[in-house]
């Protein structure tokens, strides 16, 4: 966020700015002066005073209307057991039972993955990560002013990242299996990385003054406009190794008997490709609009001064689109964690549970009438997304503070 610009009424007192006495509209019109300020002026003046709430309150009220009840209701459901009973259903409060099942109980391999003992290489990687986190914490304690909130925040960050790294290290290699939690994280970060890079590249190419760029702009928008269920079915058609359009290629490579559906990472790659195909336009459009609204004078001046394209990009364009990029990645991050249509339609969860995402996990629990467990998984997703979003938002805040 840039420096907050405040449009307070007091700042525009002409006398303060040094313009002396600037007659207001009322004073310049002698007739209105005789009758005093008119009714419409007082109404407008009152509205002006309440402009703050008037601008913001409709949105806040709309959000509150539909956000409070579902949030609290699903929190309660996640702490309860759901059972069908004659005449409807019953919800019995069981405390943290559903959560315990996810982390330590029968759902552990589904949620966290199957663990294997760490190889020496993974010990090294994990160890260096732990050292890095410890140094981060130590630097904070040593150099900065320590506050309770800041300390707690950083402790949560370090513990959270450390736990995730531990889970990844034990389930990613040598016999371990990724669970829905780690699969979702892979989908999100790998997907967003490629979507951003490709989207930025396409935006920079199409912002140039070349003939036919309007055609490209419209075409690049297309994938996002297809309904996600439709995209999922379409990719299922495309990746079919016996009936799909790439069959000759599979046959030439000798892969007709190999079905990517039966290979965990093959299935995940297919879903990642479909995800990147579908959501790159999102990055593309926003970055294009941002690049279009960059003022051209600095770039022209830089060209006159002899800067090459890379320098112009790095020092003028990149700082300009950084705020929008951060917002964009945050929005896409939150959406990407909720991926459900692609795993559901393309692989039905993949070989075993290999391509299941967290939302899919919640969905199948819900379908099996394990509604409490489903709400628990949904809340774990909420915590996970909040964790990463807070990290990201604080990163944004630090970046913009450093730039000032």
């Amino acid at each position, binding site marked *: 966020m840039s420096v907050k610009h405040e449009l307070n009424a007091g700042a525009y007192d002409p006398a303060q700015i040094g313009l002396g006495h600037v007659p207001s509209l009322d004073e310049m019109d002698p007739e209105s002066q005789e009758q005093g300020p008119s009714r419409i002026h007082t109404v407008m003046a009152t509205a002006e005073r309440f402009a703050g709430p008037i601008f913001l309150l409709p949105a806040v009220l709309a959000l509150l209307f539909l956000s409070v009840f579902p949030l609290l209701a699903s929190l309660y459901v996640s702490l309860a057991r759901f059972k069908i009973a004659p005449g409807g259903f019953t919800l019995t409060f069981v405390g943290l039972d559903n959560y315990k099942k996810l982390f330590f109980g029968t759902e552990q391999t589904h949620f966290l993955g199957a663990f294997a003992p760490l190889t020496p290489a993974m010990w090294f990687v994990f160890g260096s990560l732990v050292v890095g986190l410890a140094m981060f914490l130590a630097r904070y304690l040593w150099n900065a002013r320590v506050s309770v909130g800041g300390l707690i925040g950083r402790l949560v960050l370090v513990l959270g990242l450390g736990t995730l790294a531990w889970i990844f290290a034990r389930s990613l290699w040598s016999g371990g299996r990724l669970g829905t939690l780690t699969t979702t994280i892979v989908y999100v970060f790998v997907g967003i990385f490629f979507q951003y890079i490709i989207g930025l590249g396409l935006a920079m190419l199409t912002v140039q003054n070349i003939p036919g760029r309007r055609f490209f702009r419209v075409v690049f928008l*297309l994938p996002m406009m297809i*309904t996600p269920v439709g995209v999922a079915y379409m990719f299922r058609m495309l990746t079919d190794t016996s009936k799909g359009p790439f069959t000759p290629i599979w046959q030439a490579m000798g892969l007709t008997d190999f079905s990517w559906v039966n290979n965990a990472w093959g299935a995940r790659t297919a879903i990642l490709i479909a995800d990147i195909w579908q959501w790159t336009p999102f990055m593309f459009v926003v970055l294009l*609009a941002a690049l279009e609204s960059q003022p051209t004078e600095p770039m022209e001046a830089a060209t006159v001064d002899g800067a090459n394209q890379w320098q112009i990009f790095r020092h003028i364009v990149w700082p300009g689109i950084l705020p929008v990029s951060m917002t964009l990645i945050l929005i896409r991050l939150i959406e990407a964690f909720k991926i459900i249509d692609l795993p559901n339609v393309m692989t039905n969860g993949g070989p075993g549970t290999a391509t299941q995402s967290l939302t899919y996990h919640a969905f199948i629990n819900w379908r099996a009438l394990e509604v409490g467990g489903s709400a628990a998984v949904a809340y774990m997703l909420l915590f996970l997304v909040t964790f990463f979003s807070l990290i990201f938002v604080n990163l944004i805040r630090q970046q913009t503070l450093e730039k000032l």
Partner: protein
Amino acid sequence: MMMMRWLRSKSYNTPSPFGKVVTYLALGFWAFLILFPLYWLIVTSLKIPSQVAEGPFYLPFVDFKPSLDAWKYILAGDLSNDTLRTYRNTAIVAPVSALLALILGSTASYALVRFEYRPRIGAILTFMGCVALGIAAIYFGVPWQVAVAAAIAVFFILLLTIGRRFKRALGNDDIAFWMISQRMLPPIAVVIPIYILFQRLHLLDTYTALIITYVTSNLPIVVWLMRDYISTIPIELEECAAIDGASRFRIFWSIVLPLAVPGLVATFLFVLVFTWNEYLLALFLSSANSQTLPLVIAAQNATRGPQWWNMSVLILIMIIPVIVIAIVLERYITRGILIGAVKG
């Protein structure tokens, strides 16, 4: 030398001939990646079931005999009533929700950029407490009108007494984060409570329920996207207008909105696409009257296996209006609106 001519560009924004070649190669490659699956959809929509099952046929009239069976079935045959009705529903619900979300969201995002809010923590906690009390009262059988009225009354009383004591306040960024956090809970968890809510209000299977739900779920995105666009507008313009005596509303309407048009258009396109394609909430909130198109697509997955040909037709007719709107609106995402606005 001849080589240098290939690498020299006319202006900073027009690439050199070499750059043009590279650009067209890259853009053409990605355009092919996008258009080929769509081409496959078109081809599949022209096939009969046996042609799909026997292997890939690429070119109509060359590899296989195309037939309009699927198109006829969807648009003129058994499914046409469903298709036309759901088409009309989607065409009404999606743009209306997108427009409403844009209006509410852009005013809110302007406020979050230019004004300074300090909601006190005491007020927020009292509010949450009263909401919890109200919901508990409803759960224990109190009729909801009474519970809501009582909760509001208690809230105001507590606000004026206890709420005042805690001075610590949050800021604009926290409000924005709260807004975007509304999107973090996966829809699967909130679908049933929302269903129950609308059932109590007797709004199930109406446009109103869908529009309200879509507006509130897309509002955070509008706010966040517009925040960045609005903060690129130089504040000097607004200060000049304020010195000339314009009110906040006037400034917003006449200065900020026209300058933010590229961002507004891009955001409108997004929200339109999201609401046009939304599946899960529509599945629960609509049954006969207000059914939307994505539901019909998913329903083509019959017990005999997905009906690829029908599905292709439906997907294609779903995209067409959105593409048309995108083509029309694309010209507004252009450069140059701010040039010369602030001198010096």
